[in-house]
């Protein structure tokens, strides 16, 4: 079966439709202001875009600490940010 052109996923419960090949980091920035909260409570979003800074971590399908900039969106994915 050929890969779909669009992918449907949810970010914090809200449905989102993105092009195939979109990273979870890009997807979450489309509808959420941040990826994680720092230990002193600052909102943080992706910084380096290449899997080094760990600022883009989110919970995907219940698994925490996933680097969203290196993960492609998949159909039915559930992305949660604080």
């Amino acid at each position, binding site marked *: 079966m050929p890969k779909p052109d669009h992918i449907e996923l949810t970010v914090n419960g809200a449905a989102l439709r993105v092009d195939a090949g979109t990273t979870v980091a890009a997807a979450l920035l489309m509808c959420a202001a941040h990826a994680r909260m720092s230990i002193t409570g600052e909102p943080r979003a992706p910084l380096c875009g290449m899997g080094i800074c760990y600022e883009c971590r989110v919970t995907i399908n219940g698994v925490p*600490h996933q680097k969203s900039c290196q993960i492609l969106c998949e159909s039915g994915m559930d992305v949660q940010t604080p």
Partner: protein
Amino acid sequence: MTKSWDVVIAGGGIVGTACAVECVQRGLRTAVVEPGSIGGGTTAAGMGHIVAMDDSPAQLALTRYSQQLWRALAVRLPATVEFDCCGTLWIAADDEEMAEVHRKHAVYAEAGIPTQILDAGALASAEPHLRRPLAGALLVPEDAVLYPPGAAAWFMQQAVRMGAILYGQRAVLCAAKGIVQLDDSTELRATTIVNAAGADAPRVTTGLPIRKRKGHLVVTDRYPGYVRHQLVELGYLKSAHSVTADSVAFNVQPRRTGQIILGSSRQFGADDTAIDHRILSAMIDRARAYMPEIASLKAIRTWTGFRAATPDKLPLVGPWPGDESIWLAAGHEGLGITTSLGTAKLLADALTGRPPAIPIEPYLPRRFAERTAHA
């Protein structure tokens, strides 16, 4: 250049800095010599467990005394010390170990240490990530955890505030007969030289009955609430007992940050700091046997360290028979963090002729000289 002191302490780890506080508080002119960063040596490899341990009556006395001192100090400790009175759960996997739980409960009760026996159900509620079934556990609620380098740094700060001097970034080349020579040609004259150099103690004073025992540690990313107490398997005692074999035991600790520290391993005769994958793997695998899902947690860092082990598992606190200017505060094996406070008080009391709170005899270094004399 020569300076004169009442006490010069070799080693700015948790034991050395705790001793510095006690000495300077009693009016002794005190200096501390540390080649690296405060709490960066043996102290940095400690798990930071404050634990009452009953391997022997003398060990129980010293750890209990120290545990009480920590509890009294807790309210003054800054956040950087990360002191957390989370308690210890000694975990019994089977009936044999459960019998050990009951035995420990009785021993601790006699020593005035409050404990609570948990059955399998209570244990599962207390720590949901432990596998089931386990037999139960002994909870020691007055045990705690802290961040060892933070504690050492705070002690040093307190000591300096009261007039102690730190000779930092300098190593002790020679310490004997009241003279401490540093590697920058500084010479310190001292009435008493305290060897608190951790795993490096045998280098500072020759002939110490101390062997290095290597340990591995892993710290995870933040998983707040995953582990609530310090968890130790009762088999830990078998590991600490063994004199020759390499061994691992289940031992995890929650940090204030929500990170989990995983130990423990013991090896004699391994002198390098490199990670031994065989041992590390066995150590984590042992943890998985008690907490199956731990395998999916992320490890951020691994490191090793050396415990200073004596033949009878008790530290060396007091005058060294080989040189009347040298006193020891070393050989604490896995209990240096806990007993740093007790050691410091015993040492400083003995130095100033005050009666100690607990008998100092079991820890006096001369016990080894006497043994060799009788051999």
